[in-house]
């Protein structure tokens, strides 16, 4: 096991709304190793983005992180003063967002925005030094003629270029962890591949860890070392990327994989998971996946399954895992 950089324990983020208490993140445990990439997968609304905002302590009102720990190299980020947390943001943990078109401020040049982000963490540097570093940061994300781009406004750049600028800004202060929230969702497929390649190269150069949040299993297969599958605010399966694709255990993961077209299979139809994610203020009793689960038994409707180890390095939150064994027993009986 590699050295651990970030550990999340029992993280709980809730929203008090008029229709009830919304448990967006409900007792999540995660671990990110140094220099590795953790993919977090799940449908829209499963709490992926709230998880990342909780780690950054940027949960929007009226949300609150009510329980749990976020340990960055042993230091619990949920306990430190706001001023220290600001130093962590952008300094040790940086974040890039889904929409490169709207994540840059339209009234400032891209250079100025990168300089602003760097100034937060090295306020003593001279303007000239900061500019030089910003141009170096643009160069690092392979932006052609960075000196010229420095003085351009976001609307003059393409989507892929803007995402590169966002990455340059995020990496300007050499963070140890990059949280990428759906970094390629808004981009063309070819540009997606370029951005993912770039992230991988930068990871190799700097040795940073990445949390990659996505709903795209293809991106996970390409990028992630480890994977956590989220459903309705909980982690339902946690293992290495290889094990996830070779031996998925949770029925939800099976469903997700079944809905991806593959070249090496001859199938007329893709499987789809019946139904939709339940609204977060009305989660069902027991396992939250049980109304959509083809393997559900009586126990699934009353008792929430905990995350448990079914194989070496493979944790699943399902009463019926390992599922092959359960099905074999059923057919024998």
């Amino acid at each position: 096991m590699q050295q651990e950089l970030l550990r999340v324990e029992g993280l709980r983020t809730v929203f008090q709304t008029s229709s009830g208490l919304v448990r967006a993140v409900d007792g999540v445990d995660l671990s990110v190793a140094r220099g590795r990439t953790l993919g977090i997968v799940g449908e829209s609304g499963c709490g992926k983005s709230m998880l990342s905002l909780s780690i950054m302590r940027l949960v929007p009102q009226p949300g609150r992180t009510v329980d749990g720990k976020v340990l960055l190299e042993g230091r619990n980020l949920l306990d430190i003063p706001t001023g220290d947390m600001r130093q962590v943001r952008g300094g040790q943990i940086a974040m890039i967002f889904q929409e490169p078109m709207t994540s840059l401020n339209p009234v400032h040049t891209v250079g100025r925005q990168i300089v602003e982000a760097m100034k937060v963490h090295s306020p003593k540097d001279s303007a000239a030094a900061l500019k030089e570093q910003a141009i170096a940061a643009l160069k690092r994300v392979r932006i052609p003629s960075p000196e010229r781009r420095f003085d351009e406004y976001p609307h003059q750049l393409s989507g892929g270029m803007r995402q590169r600028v966002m990455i340059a800004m995020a990496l300007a202060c050499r963070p140890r962890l990059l949280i990428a929230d759906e970094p390629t969702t808004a981009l063309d497929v070819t540009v997606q591949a370029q951005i993912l390649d770039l992230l991988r190269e930068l990871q190799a150069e700097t040795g940073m860890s990445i949390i990659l949040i996505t709903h795209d299993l293809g991106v996970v297969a390409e990028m992630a070392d480890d994977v956590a599958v989220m459903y309705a605010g909980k982690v339902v399966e946690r293992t290495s990327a290889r094990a996830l694709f070779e031996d998925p255990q949770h029925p939800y993961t099976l469903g997700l994989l079944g809905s991806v077209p593959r070249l090496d299979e001859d199938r007329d139809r893709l499987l789809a998971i019946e139904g939709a994610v339940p609204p977060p203020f009305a989660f069902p009793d027991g396992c939250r996946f049980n109304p959509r689960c083809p393997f559900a038994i009586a126990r699934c409707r009353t008792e929430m399954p905990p995350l448990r180890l079914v194989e070496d390095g493979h944790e699943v939150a399902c009463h019926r895992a390992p599922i092959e064994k359960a099905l074999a027993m059923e057919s024998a009986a």
Partner: protein
Amino acid sequence: MADIGASAAAVVAPVPASMPKRPGMLRRLVREPVAAIALAIVVLLVLVALLAPWLAPTGPFDNDLSVALSVPGTEGLMLGADGQGRNMITRLLYGLRATLMMGVASVLLGGVVGALVGFAAAFYRRIDGLLMRLMDMLLSFPAILFGLAIAAILGPGISTIILALSVATVPLMARIVRGSAMVVMRQDYIEAARATGMSDARLILRHLAPNCLSPLFVFATLRFGQVILLGSALSFLGLGAQAPMAELGAMASEGRDFLFFAPHIAVIPCLLIFTIVLAFNLLGDALRDALDPRLRV
């Protein structure tokens, strides 16, 4: 079918990497002849007011009772003289100076405080309710009432008027700024900037404020016209500039006594007030058109 495809392609045609620069704000503003005239009048008025001591033919308080109530066109007195025999041109120049200064000071003071309240309300949602109910309270009093109340405490004078008009401007500016700031707060770049560890003050100053400026400027310009009108009304009621100080509203008030046999003493300052208010209103409208992103080409 082919037509539709072609026109769609034209609509989504990629923007060239190096777009020609959009015509500047000023150029878009003066494209309209009305706006250009309004801007010219405003610039002229401001210049004349600034240069009043050099342009005025006499000192502001020099009087010659032998020419009192002279009508415009009298030898050496192009616009006549007032009841004290003071040159109307001199009085108008100094009056314009005082009136514009009063307007600038109230809009600046009230606008800055109001904008700060608006930004705070949009940024710190927790105190939004409290701040905006306070603003509603201020909004429920007419500006004239503020003027009367403040004059009762501080005594009449031009600073009383400035204070009253500033207080009356604060809630209006706060509402407008809060409205546009709340839209900006929902933008992704605010969250992205937060994620870089930026402090609240910096976030407001660098990212929030610059994106809220156009409605703020438009309102300030329009408000300037209203403030001049209100200030002149307060001066007319005797709460503002005190004799012998020249101020357009106060001049109109003084001229009231001679309305039947020397109407120019009241009418000319009123015409000047009218011109100022009209010019600023037209300029404000033109500014709104020029800054409106939906009208940009």
